[in-house]
């Protein structure tokens, strides 16, 4: 059995964190390749369904990141998002999802180093949590494991 490599679903806002990831790449900053990015127009677009669906389908962690409050491309999207995050965070925390599996951050498109550190941090914490076994649906056996 090879060493556990976490799979993380990342939801990045198009205008800030996605740009930061881009800048980190262009700047040749090294960060772990464990996350799959879903680009959102704004963190305000994030629906709790997305997070639950990711875990349900077997993600070991979810990382949500967007513009700093006050810097939203759509003026106030992330302010509304923040209130939603607060409710989601307490809800999932209360029902017993490890806090390290669901992470939120604000990273502007200029903060490539913050992105690098955060990415490393998220991956290492999820790695420490181990595979997501209890907050996922039983996997469908389609005989296509090698494809997935």
């Amino acid at each position: 059995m090879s060493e556990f490599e976490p799979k993380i679903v990342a939801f990045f806002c198009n205008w800030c964190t996605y740009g930061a990831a881009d800048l980190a790449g262009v700047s040749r900053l090294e960060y772990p390749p464990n996350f799959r990015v879903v680009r959102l127009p704004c963190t305000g677009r994030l629906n709790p369904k997305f997070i639950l669906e990711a875990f349900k389908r077997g993600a070991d962690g979810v990382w949500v990141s967007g513009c700093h409050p006050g810097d939203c491309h759509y003026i106030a999207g992330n302010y509304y998002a923040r209130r939603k995050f607060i409710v989601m965070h307490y809800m999932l925390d209360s029902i017993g999802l490890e806090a390290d599996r669901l992470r939120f951050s604000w990273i502007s498109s200029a903060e490539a180093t913050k992105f690098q550190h955060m990415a490393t941090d998220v991956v290492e914490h999820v790695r420490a949590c181990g595979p997501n076994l209890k907050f996922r649906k039983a996997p469908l056996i389609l005989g296509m494991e090698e494809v997935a």
Partner: protein
Amino acid sequence: MPSLEETTQKIRETAKKALADGKAEVVIGYKKGTYPLSTAPFFARTPEDCDQLIWSNFARINLANYLPGRPGKVAVVAKGCDARSIVGQVAENQFHKDNLYVIGVPCTGMVDNNLIAAKEQRPYRDYSETLDTITLKGADFSTEIKKEEVLRRNCRTCANRTPKTADELVGPEVPGAQADDFADLKELHSKSPEERMEYFKDLIKDCLRCYACRNACPLCYCPVCFVDETRPQWLGKSTDPMDTLTFHLLRGLHCAGRCTSCGACETACPVNIKVREFNRITEETVMDEWGYEAGLSWEQKPPLTVFQPDDEASFIK
């Protein structure tokens, strides 16, 4: 406190007057249920209809559920919690305030039939009720049960028993009970994540996913519910434990800052799951974070529709 009969009379008079004055074309209230220890929703359109309206210790259904999308002028009989749900629906533009006439009934709590069943297992043939007692009569027994001992969970911690936003009250105001302090949730929070997950998975292990809780809920008026969406399909159709948990989590999240603890979901549940537990988590959050309680005044804005630039969220790095 006026007796149940007095309140019933007052509701009938008020309903007739509302119809006669043109304040409403229909009065939504309660009538005697077809099963014992129950009431059924009733739509009174004529003065004769109004004589079927009653008040009871079993008026557990939240009649606000019948408002969204209803045309014409409507009067509703509302307990404290129902009146709060109505305020929420008006705030969410589901019903126009001008077409609404709320007949508020100060309420001393509704009865949980499961607790009655636990107190008297013998089969009964008839029952009678007063404001403070329920009497079950069987072949060779007559058991009187104090209402206080069989109140629903949410009624025991109801701080808003008088519907303050009602257009008319049919009785004197009643003092609220000690509000929910969420002590059990706080205690749960001190446990490990594994124990918490175990607790919640155990809580919903009997869930049939019949969605009775959704249908009974006055907040659940979406034309297409997320459980019925198929493209994408957010929930599988089986009772997979994770799908069930997702349903309850999303239901709780949807009700964040809107739930008024009317207990309609728990009453509707055929397998007696404490489904309000998920709502209580969000209720505690909006109370702690923004000091918000749903539906107490016409002016307040639901917490997730507004923001403060300095909202505290230290978990976001």
